[in-house]
Structures are given as C-alpha cells and as structure tokens.
C-alpha cells in the first residue's frame, strides 16, 4: 500500500450562494503526479488554495503531509511548495533576489540558500538571467522562475496551479519536463491542476476530473479510458432521433448510444468491424449518414463521457483569462 500524503475529508468551500467545492474526497499518494482536471470555474484553484492554507474551508478539512490544514496550517506551509496561477515574483527585483527572498521566508540559512538558489536556477536554465530584473523576463522564463522559487525549501509536495496556462507548446513541454524531473529525481509528490486534457493524459500518474465543485472520476489515464470500454463511433445523419432508435434496436454488440451536442456517439467494441453494419442498418431505413468517424478513446472522449460536454466549451472563459492577464501586464509596465 502506498503512503497517502494528501487526504481530503468532505472538503467544501461556499462563496455566498456559489458552492465552489462540494464535499470532495480524494487521496494523493507519495511520489505521484496527481492531475486535477477540469474547466475554468470547476473549483480547481479553490481546492488548491484550501490545500495550501490560503483559503479556509467552509466545511470539512484535509490532511497534507500528516498535518491538518485547519488545525496546523503552519506545519503544512513549511512542508509544501506552491506555484500559484498568477506570476508572483517581485518584478522590481532580480531573479536571484526573489530566490533569496523566498529562502528568507522559509527561514533557510543564507549559506544553504545561496547554494540551493544557484542549483535551482541552473536546473530551470535561468542562470544567465539571475541578475536581471524579473520585469524583463518572458512568460516562459517567469514560469520557470516561479517553479524554482517554490523549490527553495525542498518541499515534499509541490502544488502547481495551471503551470502551462498561456504558454506556447514548446514551453509547455519544457515545463512538464521539469515537473517530471522533480518526481523522478527528488521523489516529490506533485499536485497539478490543468485544463489541457492532453497534458493530463501524457504526464499525470493519476487524474481526478472535477466539474462544478464535484469530483466525477479518479484514476490513471488508462483506467479512465478503459472505462469507456471500447471505441467511439461518431455520426451525423439526416435524422438523428430516428437513427438512435434504429441503432439501439437493430445492431448487437453496441454498448451505448447517445446524442452529444450535434452528433450521435456510439460506444462499441471493435469499432472498425461494427461501423459497416451500422451504416447498412441506417441506409435500409432510409437515413443518410453525412459524417462519420471512429476513434480510440482519448482523454477528450473520457471527459465528454463523464461530464456530458466538451472541454472546448470553456474556450470563451479562457479568452477572458488572457484578457485579464494582458490588462495586468499593461498595468505593471
């Protein structure tokens, strides 16, 4: 049995009438990358803020590194590192100054701190920029500095809130490589939120899918995909309602048929073999298929299966986040 390092017990946060996090229960094991996946506003950041003792739960509690977040927040803070969603480094100071400031806040003696800061800046490839003001850094550099800053205390658990938000694909991959390195080289437990499905799929050991404050599923990416139990055939037809009736009655070996948004999703074993039979049955009843695809389950499918909608529904609010960021950047300069 693996050691549990985070355990939430009916963790709940209510803002006025909005139940942001609704009695969630989960466990995170020692040394794993735990992905917290969900759209914006699902309760990811609220959960991370409660676990990192910045926000007080309305109800329930959590045990982090053996300490209760409500009764013993000081010990929790000493044993964790946090990379918040916003850039939090002091822009008017250099990268080096920021590292040393963090060390001071954790009470790390100067000689130890200097050595460690050097090593960490090396790891995130910022040694060349250490003596430059943070305001001159690019987005990727800033994110790397944020990660280095939160590692100065050698935390047992590292919390990252959307570490790749707003970064280009190449930088995103680089950030994830650092995260993997932390897990492999230091045995650190990583709790990371994201709304990029592919990232969770590729890098997380286990994933929790959260939506509207509730956890809908937990498991390894493979377990979650296996839940779907087969391939997905997506159809667009001239008469969807009739087609659904025909497919669920006529053909055998079909696990599930339902309409999601503007297409029919059919869950089957061996999609390649079943597809022709389905087409034939529909044609016989005078329904024409206008579009068809067969996919092996991806996290995208899993997400849709579990939440009943696509992740890209949230594109709009992601735009808002960027707009907010831009405003903030302008305000800073």
């Amino acid at each position, binding site marked *: 049995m693996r050691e549990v390092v985070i355990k939430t017990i009916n963790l709940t946060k209510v803002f006025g009438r909005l139940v942001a996090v609704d009695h969630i229960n989960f466990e995170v094991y020692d040394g794993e990358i735990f992905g917290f996946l969900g759209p914006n506003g699902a309760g990811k950041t609220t959960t991370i*803020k409660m676990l*990192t*003792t*910045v*926000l*007080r739960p309305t109800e329930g509690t959590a045990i982090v590194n053996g300490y209760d977040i409500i009764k013993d927040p*000081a010990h929790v*803070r*000493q044993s*964790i590192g*946090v990379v*918040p969603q*916003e*850039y*939090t*480094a*002091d*822009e*008017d*100071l250099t990268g080096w*100054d920021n590292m040393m*400031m*963090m060390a*001071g*806040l*954790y*009470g*790390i*003696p100067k000689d*130890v701190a200097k050595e460690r800061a050097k090593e960490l800046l090396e790891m995130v490839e910022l040694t060349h920029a250490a003596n430059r003001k943070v305001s001159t850094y690019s987005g990727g550099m800033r994110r790397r500095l944020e990660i280095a*800053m939160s590692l100065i205390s*050698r*935390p*047992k658990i590292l919390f990252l809130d959307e570490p790749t938000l707003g970064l280009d694909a190449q930088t995103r991959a680089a950030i994830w490589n650092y995260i993997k390195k932390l897990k492999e080289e230091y045995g650190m437990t990583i709790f990371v939120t994201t709304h990029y499905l592919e990232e969770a799929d590729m890098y997380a050991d286990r994933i929790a899918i959260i939506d509207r404050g509730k956890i809908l599923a937990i498991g390894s990416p493979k377990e979650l995909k296996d839940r779907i139990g087969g391939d997905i055939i997506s159809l667009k037809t001239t008469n969807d309602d009739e087609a659904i009736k025909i497919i669920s009655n006529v053909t055998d070996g079909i696990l599930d048929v339902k309409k999601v948004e503007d297409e029919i999703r059919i869950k089957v074993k061996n999609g390649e073999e079943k597809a022709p039979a389905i087409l034939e049955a529909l044609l016989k009843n005078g329904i024409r298929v206008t579009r068809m695809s067969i996919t092996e389950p991806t996290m995208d499918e899993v997400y849709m299966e579990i939440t009943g909608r696509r992740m890209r529904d949230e594109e709009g609010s992601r735009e808002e986040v960027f707009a907010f960021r831009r405003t*903030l950047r302008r*305000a*800073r300069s």
Partner: protein
Amino acid sequence: MQGERRNLSLYHGLWTLTSRELKKWYKSPVILLLSIVQPIFWIALFGKAMNLGGLFTGTSLNIPGLTIPKQIIDEIGTEILKQTFGTTDYFSFLAAGMLSFIVLFTSMQSGMSIVWDRRLGVLDRLLTTPVPRGNILIAKIFNSVIRSLVQASIVLTVAVLLGMSFAPKINAIDFLGAYAALFLMSFGLSSLFLMLALRATDWQSQMAIMNLLNLPLLFTSNAFYPIKEMPNWLRPIAYINPLTYSNGAVRGLLLGISTNLTIDFLYLGLFALILSSIGIILSWRYLSM
C-alpha cells in the same frame, strides 16, 4: 528534507520582507531621486516664501502725524512672534513642522504597497509561506518608517543649509528624542494606512483615502500656526491630531519652544501601540483571499 536547520522564530521573514521593499526603493534611482527632491522643494519654496518673521520685523510703518522709531516697531514685532510661535525664528518653527509633514506624506504611501502586492499576486505567494501573517504587515510598517525617517533627515539637512537654527544648548539626546517622536508617529500612521488597505484591491480607492486624509491632517495640526491661534471648534480636533504632538516634541527638543514632552511622547507612544496592534490583529483575520 527533515531535520534541516531552519530559523522559524516568531520574527522570521521580518527582515527579509523589509529589505525586499527597501531594495525596490534604493535600487530604482528615479523613485529615490523624486522622493528626495520633493521634500527639498517643500522646505526651500514653501518654507522660504512663507516668511512671517520678515513680515513682523524690518518693515517700516508710515502713518501720517505719527512717528514711531523703527526700533520700537521691531520690538513689538518680535514680541508678537514670541507670543505666537514661541520663537522669533518662523523659518525654524516651520522647518520643524515640515519634519512631521514629510513623515505624514511618506507614511501615507505605505497602504499602496499592500494593494499592489495583492494585485500582482505577490501576496498570494507570501501567504503560502510559513511567514507569520503579522510579520507581513510589520515589515511594511518598518519599511515605511525607515523611508519616512530618511526623508525627514533630508528635510532637516536642507533646512539647516537654508538657515534653520537650533536651540543654543542642544545636544545629541535632543536629536535622538526628535527622531523617536517622528518614529512613533510614522509607526502609527503607517499602521493606520496599511490597515485601511488590508482588504482593498484597487489602488484608486486607496488614493482617494490618502487624498481625503492628508491635507486635513496637516491643517488641523500646529504645523503652520500654534493651536492657541485656532478658532474654538478647531482646537479639539488639533488636540486629537498626532501631528500636533510630534510637532510639539520636535520643536521642544530642537528649538527649545516650551511644550509638555511627557504628554507628547505618551500620546505618540499610545498612538503607535494601539494602531499597530489593531493592524496586526486585523492582518491575522483579513490577510487572505
């Protein structure tokens, strides 16, 4: 990870956070220069232009049919000045008041830094570290106090260069005392303005609060004129205003103008103690998201 030596005392992080803000100050030459130039302008332009001393002495009156010797006019003027301000040297009187004034203006800025820290996410980061919540506030108070005292020293230097004269028997302890009075007032005022900013997220309302309070605080004190010259309704307000007491202490110690130093320091001490205590208690409660 375990057993690592760490200095997690009650005060840890205090100096780290104070030096962080001081660094921002002395490492950006423009801000430093501006903050030095501003008090110089005040003392040089305002202090020298508002020369009440010159108004009462050295003028000659030409009233028809009446010949008053110049010596008598000067003596009367001097006596009026002495009665009103406790000294014949109005520039020195004003310069001593300027010290409190610059401390007030600098301390007021303290609230802004917490608003910016919140907006730029720095506060988010600080709150996840094991630094005691109260220390975040105390560090900001310290930073503000240090800046204020540096500014006051500049004003004092410039005032001396422009002709401010001290009491004849002045000694080092008098100077220390004057700085102690300014320290206490700055401590209290910084706490007050930080407290008002604890929950604020936008800097505009913070600016509005500052503008609402700065001139009234200045003009309801004895910075420009003594309390006994004030209308009756204004006097009680002047007696609540901490500036009145720091002016009293500084003038008493540096210029030898009679004042009750015990009351001055008692008031300033209580002012600093009470406001900083409230600030720290509020920071435990409100320094969160």
